[in-house]
């Protein structure tokens, strides 16, 4: 399989479906594992890294995941392909930039990836759309058990699964959810959410790491404690306490926008729609920010029956990508598709060659204009 086979569409975890999808964009669980009898990656020779890579690659490729699985050699891939994998959350930025023999095993539908020789020998990851942490933990547990049939993990009765960095020790689990919080920002209350996350001992990052949350309004929150709490307890705490509280913050802010600041809401959505429909040049940052407002407008109509002149105009737009059903309105899936397909590496991979920033801005604006253009 080639990367261009998947680069023309969004992946399942970003499809805008699943429980609580108007706020919880996706759920992700990652497990850090190391093989017994080997040094941690940072201290390994190239030969040892290659040996680990070959062993884990063979095991992972033999698993029955109910989907086509392919292997991608990260150290031999061009920079553009590595950036593409980062944009789709299939590998970490660290894995893309690291050195030495390393790779990734990816399920065709992208719900599962396994990074080999990242910071740990193995990082398993399961991603699903909406709020689906229980399903994620069930799936990753099954895959982890299957891998363990073929290898010996580094484990110690007191410290649990041994990881290269002591901060991942114990369960080695990192549970995260991606939240779309535009109303909190519009109402100037994002600090409230960040303070609550800090109190709950959670790490907060943007869609693409530190700093990117300011433009896309997408926040990734994850547990920091991995030792002394079971996998099930961490997941259950997210599902019963953390997620409902965070979702409620954003819901209150959305209701507040409708009740007291409807002019601001309407103006933001009207400007975003007009700019995206007419701009000739648009940067990635600007596109993320404006598309976030469109997503808010569509979700508020669907879940709160919100009606403002700008939301009404937005909802009257026909979906240019609806295929057999051209009369269908603009969907969250279309917005997310534009969001992902206009990211720098996606643009260039789909265009077939590398483009400088100015050309990317023009191509991005053109793709978005076409998608939001209304035939008369």
């Amino acid at each position: 399989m080639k990367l261009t086979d998947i680069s023309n569409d969004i992946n399942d975890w970003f499809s805008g479906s699943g429980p609580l999808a108007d706020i919880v964009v996706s759920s992700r669980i990652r497990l850090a594992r190391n093989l017994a009898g080997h040094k941690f990656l940072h201290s390994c020779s190239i030969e040892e890294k290659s040996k680990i890579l070959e062993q884990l690659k063979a095991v992972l490729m033999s698993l029955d995941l109910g989907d086509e699985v392919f292997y991608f050699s990260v150290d031999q891939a061009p920079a553009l392909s590595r950036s593409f994998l980062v944009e789709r959350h299939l590998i970490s930025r660290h894995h893309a930039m690291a050195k030495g023999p390393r790779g990734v095993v990816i399920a065709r539908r992208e719900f599962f990836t396994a990074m080999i020789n990242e910071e740990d020998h193995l990082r398993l990851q399961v991603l699903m759309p909406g709020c689906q942490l229980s399903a994620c933990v069930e799936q990753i547990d099954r895959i982890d058990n299957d891998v363990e049939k073929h290898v010996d993990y580094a484990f110690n009765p007191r410290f649990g699964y041994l990881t290269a960095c002591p901060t991942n020790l114990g369960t080695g689990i990192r549970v995260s959810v991606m939240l779309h919080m535009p109303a909190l920002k519009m109402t100037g209350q994002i600090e409230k959410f960040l303070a609550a996350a800090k109190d709950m001992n959670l790490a907060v990052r943007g869609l693409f790491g530190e700093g990117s949350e300011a433009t896309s309004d997408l926040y990734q929150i994850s547990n920091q404690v991995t030792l002394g709490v079971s996998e099930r307890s961490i997941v259950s705490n997210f599902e019963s306490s953390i997620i409902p509280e965070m979702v409620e913050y954003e819901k209150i802010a959305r209701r507040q926008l409708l009740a007291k600041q409807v002019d601001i809401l309407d103006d933001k959505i009207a400007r975003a729609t007009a700019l995206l429909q007419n701009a000739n040049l648009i940067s990635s940052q600007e596109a993320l920010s404006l598309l976030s407002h469109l997503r808010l407008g569509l979700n508020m109509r669907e879940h709160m029956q919100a009606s403002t002149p700008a939301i009404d105009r937005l909802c009257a737009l026909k979906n240019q990508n609806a295929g057999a059903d051209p009369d269908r309105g603009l969907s969250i899936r279309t917005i997310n598709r534009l969001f992902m397909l206009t990211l720098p590496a996606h643009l260039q991979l789909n265009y077939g060659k590398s483009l400088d920033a100015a050309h990317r801005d023009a191509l991005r604006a053109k793709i978005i204009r076409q998608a939001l253009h209304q035939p008369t």
Partner: protein
Amino acid sequence: MQCQVCNKRTATIHLTEITDGVRHEMHICEQCAAEQGIAAQSQMSINDLLSNLLASQPSDDELLGGGDEVSACPNCGFTLDRLQKEGTLGCPHDYEVFQHSLLPLIQHAHNGSTTHCGKVPSKVPHDTKKLVELSSLRQELERAIREEDYERAAELRDRMKQQE
């Protein structure tokens, strides 16, 4: 709240007993509790319960067999000063070799915890698995008591009894 026995003094002891899934609550003052010998017979304070639990935690020796104070790991040659520079350890043995030095760091990173709770690889020997499972139950019980979730605490206590 008034004492359910003398109906005069303020109830300062709140007892919750769960037997065969049925919950009984009792609110009494300290004097009546002492007179009836309730506190001594069937209940203990949360502090006592926690200290008993902590005292029954498996020692390092039971779990790991103790760690030697050496400057470099005999398996990989890793020295602790590299942890500050590189952010990672050299090999899985470093957790035993540098256990004493690493404990404060581990405790700090994991909200005070230094003992694993959760999944155990299926290949781990049965006795080790049982030890980790007991330790997990004990930690869950501590949490349930802290959160005053007595139904859950009772359920965990019964599960621990079955395991022992």
